[in-house]
């Protein structure tokens, strides 16, 4: 059954605050083989003007994925996870994420379209810090393959 386009514009409640830890940044850094000391050593990050170790650019997907999770778990949307493929991903940073950030996500169904028997859904997830300042915006386009 095709996705209902009337769900465009649907928004989800803010996620529980996520506290960014030094060791989680270290784990992510090691997983992608990056070596910049500003990811690992607070002194090195301080020299670049950051209050604590800074996260690699795509660390933000740990946050934006929680927005996608809300959509996948939404019974009204009725997404069939087994037929979902990640099509596109965009990350736009207002500033880098760093250890000590406490971040909350707000997600919106930005677009739903059907083409060639497949459905395409674009979710926008905005990530805010404790002061309510936006840190990063992620757009994820997922493809729901036709049956």
């Amino acid at each position, binding site marked *: 059954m095709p996705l209902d386009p009337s769900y465009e514009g649907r928004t989800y409640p803010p996620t529980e605050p996520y506290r960014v830890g030094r060791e989680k940044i270290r784990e992510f850094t090691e*997983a*992608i083989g990056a070596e910049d000391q500003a990811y690992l050593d607070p002194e090195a990050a301080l020299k670049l003007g950051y209050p604590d170790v800074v996260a690699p*650019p795509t660390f933000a*997907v740990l946050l934006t*994925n929680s927005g996608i999770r809300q959509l996948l778990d939404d019974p009204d949307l009725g997404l069939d996870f*087994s037929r979902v493929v990640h099509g596109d991903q965009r990350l*736009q940073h207002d500033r880098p994420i760093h250890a000590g950030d406490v971040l909350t996500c707000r997600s919106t169904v930005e677009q739903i379209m059907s083409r060639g028997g497949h459905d395409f859904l674009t979710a926008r997830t905005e990530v805010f810090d404790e002061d309510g300042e936006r840190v990063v915006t992620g*757009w994820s386009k997922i493809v729901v393959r036709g049956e």
Partner: protein
Amino acid sequence: MDLAERRYRITRADLVRYAGASGDFNPIHWSDRIATGVGLPGVIAHGLFTMALVGRAVTEWVGHPAPIVDYTVRFARPIVVPDTDEGTELVINAVLKSVTEDGNAVLDLTATCEGEKVLAQARATVRQA
């Protein structure tokens, strides 16, 4: 900015490590049984892991840990990672497409594996160090 080609090896162990670090435990990234069961040729890398490795190349080119303002990719083809010591290899290149009014560099990125493009329309806008 020296945009020298980067080559990163990807093994099954790397996928397991990325799964843990990112929290994406979809079994198509570690179980041949599940991956082939949904019609894939075998275990594939997380698209976001590929995106992360290309992002790492960008940080190394710029010489800064967090230079990326805007980064977009399309996952064009999955990377099949065989259960061998060698795994497979991701080859990453970039060309400077333009410079924005505020001095940011726009890089057009290519990522290939076994000679096939795995990302399409991949682009990063970066602050120049």
